[in-house]
């Protein structure tokens, strides 16, 4: 299909919106009526046609606007993209993976022509046609990681693997859920996850690390993570928290349906061939509460998950203060009927709201 790219903003007037197509393919993260941490990894080898899992790097209607938002963030704070000196090769690996994947998966939007190390890259939605020499940084306007991730939705953490540990040694992080690359760069896997409550005690990170160390070339993996954001704000960085934090207190029973967004991260993991580093793309999808509840199953389930979530997690995810108001709103869309297992909307089989 041809994608119609939205003209929209993720700041100021927040004109971001999801089409019906985008709502139905939203990566709803709850496969049952409750939520607890788990490693919940699976192979990343496609998925149902049209779903966000189908392609290696999903491109959707928000692509062009998200890239514009990224450029604004970087102009304001260049430290959001950093790479320690030994990570340049991993940057080239990343560039190669994304260019090859996108040109194969979206041939109408992207083209890659390779003649030895002489590469020509065409990005039609962004109007880019650039020829450069692979592995020669001087032929790109910026480092390879920054170059390609200015053209790819989602954040990108690049993890070096040494002595059975992963290190956050490079990244492009402009749509993060409240963590700072500039602060965390260089940290090991346990250190950068240190502020996450409960999961360490549960052994989650130990198991996750063991899994990730063994992600192999040609066999990428994926999982989902989620949080909440008031307004469709991509840049929920700690750097700008003093500017956006106040928006959390602007929720009212009247505006919560349009202002409160579920924020889902589709996290994927690729072993990079030349550097042996692990690429960790973190793709952010936003959806307003009023759009989620148009899918009856999701409305029922979201209410139950938020209601029963342990307090530590609601605090960590930053919505403990707003939880009562969320529940007031969501309870209108929960009629107590059972829900079908799995994450899919099941519009044809799940009953409409009985209220």
């Amino acid at each position, binding site marked *: 299909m041809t994608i119609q790219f939205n003209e929209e903003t993720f700041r100021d007037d927040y004109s971001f919106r999801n089409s019906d197509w985008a709502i139905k393919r939203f990566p709803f993260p709850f496969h049952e009526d409750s939520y607890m941490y788990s490693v919940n990894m699976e192979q990343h080898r496609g998925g149902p046609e049209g779903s966000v899992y189908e392609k290696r790097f999903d491109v959707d209607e928000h692509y062009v606007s998200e890239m514009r938002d990224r450029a604004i963030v970087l102009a304001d704070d260049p430290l959001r993209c950093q790479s320690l000196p030994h990570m340049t090769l991993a940057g080239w690996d990343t560039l190669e993976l994304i260019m090859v994947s996108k040109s194969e998966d979206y041939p109408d939007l992207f083209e890659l022509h390779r003649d030895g190390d002489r590469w020509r890259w065409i990005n039609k939605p962004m109007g880019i046609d650039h020829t450069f020499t692979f592995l020669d940084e001087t032929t790109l306007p910026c480092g390879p990681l920054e170059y390609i991730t200015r053209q790819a939705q989602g954040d990108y953490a690049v993890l070096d693997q040494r002595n059975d540990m992963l290190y956050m040694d490079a990244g492009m992080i402009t749509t993060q859920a409240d963590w700072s690359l500039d602060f965390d760069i260089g940290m090991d896997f346990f250190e950068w996850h240190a502020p996450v409550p409960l999961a360490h005690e549960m052994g989650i990170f130990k198991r996750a690390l063991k899994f990730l160390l063994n992600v192999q*070339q040609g066999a990428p993996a994926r999982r989902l993570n989620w949080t909440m954001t008031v307004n469709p704000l991509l840049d929920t960085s700690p750097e700008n928290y003093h500017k956006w934090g106040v928006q959390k207190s602007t929720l009212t029973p009247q505006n919560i349906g349009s202002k409160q967004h579920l924020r889902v991260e589709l996290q994927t993991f690729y072993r990079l*061939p030349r550097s042996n580093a692990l690429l960790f793309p973190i793709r952010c999808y936003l959806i307003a509460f009023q759009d989620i509840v148009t899918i009856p199953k999701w409305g029922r389930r979201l209410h139950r998950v938020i209601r029963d979530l342990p307090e530590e997690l609601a605090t960590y995810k930053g919505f403990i203060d707003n939880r009562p108001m969320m529940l007031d709103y969501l309870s209108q869309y929960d009629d107590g009927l059972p829900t079908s297992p799995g994450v899919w909307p099941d519009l044809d089989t799940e009953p409409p709201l009985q209220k």
Partner: protein
Amino acid sequence: MSAAPQKAKAGAEKIEVEVSAIVPLNDLVTRFEFTRRDGLPFPPFSAGAHTVVEMNDDGRTRLNPYSLMSDPADSTKYAISVRRDDEGRGGSLFMHRKVKVGDTMTITYPVNLFPLDLRGRKHVFLAGGIGITPFMAMIAYLERMGGAWELHYACRSEALGTYVDELTSRHPNKVHVYYDDKKQAIALEDLLDGQPLGTHVYVCGPQGMIQWVHKTAAAHGWPDENVHSEEFLAPQPGKPFEVRLCKSDITIQVGEHESLLEAIERCGVEAPFLCRGGACGQCETDVVEADGEFIHRDHWLDDDDHASGKKIMPCVSRFVGKTLVLDR
């Protein structure tokens, strides 16, 4: 997460190849070169990676890991060098005696358990015998990237000095060769002394050599993190034993010359694996019940795990006793 989560497959992704060249290097070592049957370029790989070669030996499947020793930048071929082990379980003999140019084989995508530390200011390689193979790829990589390195290579004799001529003629100032039969030995203490901060040492060779390097470096104040080693363990033969696999609800016999992992696979039970050499951790299996003694031979589990009797690495470890029940 999704409606039908996909189960992880056992082993790495596979590549169908054709044997394009067989080059005997000396009495014991032969190089095998592969090209892809589908004509596509090989995936790039990081120096130090290995591939697992699948051998169909008269109906018996053998899976042996070998370091990729070709230039990582060359996507037209992969090469391995195999030392013939007349006492071994037969994998190397199969390669030497039965594999012919033009044969089709299956190998896995590269898996790297012995990577270069790319932060290193300098890389010092210590090779013993066939342990030279991963360093061939590392040297090619560092030469291209302009990295600093030196190689100290111990061989049994000149006649068995695999790749010595090639290495010494290309890099006369960086390669140092020591022959056992001439009573030459690597002067390890001297070469550890005076290396710049940020130097990394890599050793690949027999177990005694690896332990000697780790111990000597520690005694000279080198951090553990700067000393890297790789040793593929071949499964050792042992007394046959019986195992119950409780998830699969079958009881299997492990023969004298097969590993526990091979016996599990032979009986049709899929078990995860990558390196098949006790290093990667992928085949770690929980012990449900045991009455007897474990023969742990892996590098993966720590001493506490070994002592606990709760875990086993079936690729290289065995068991002697009355009952063994595994969660598989």
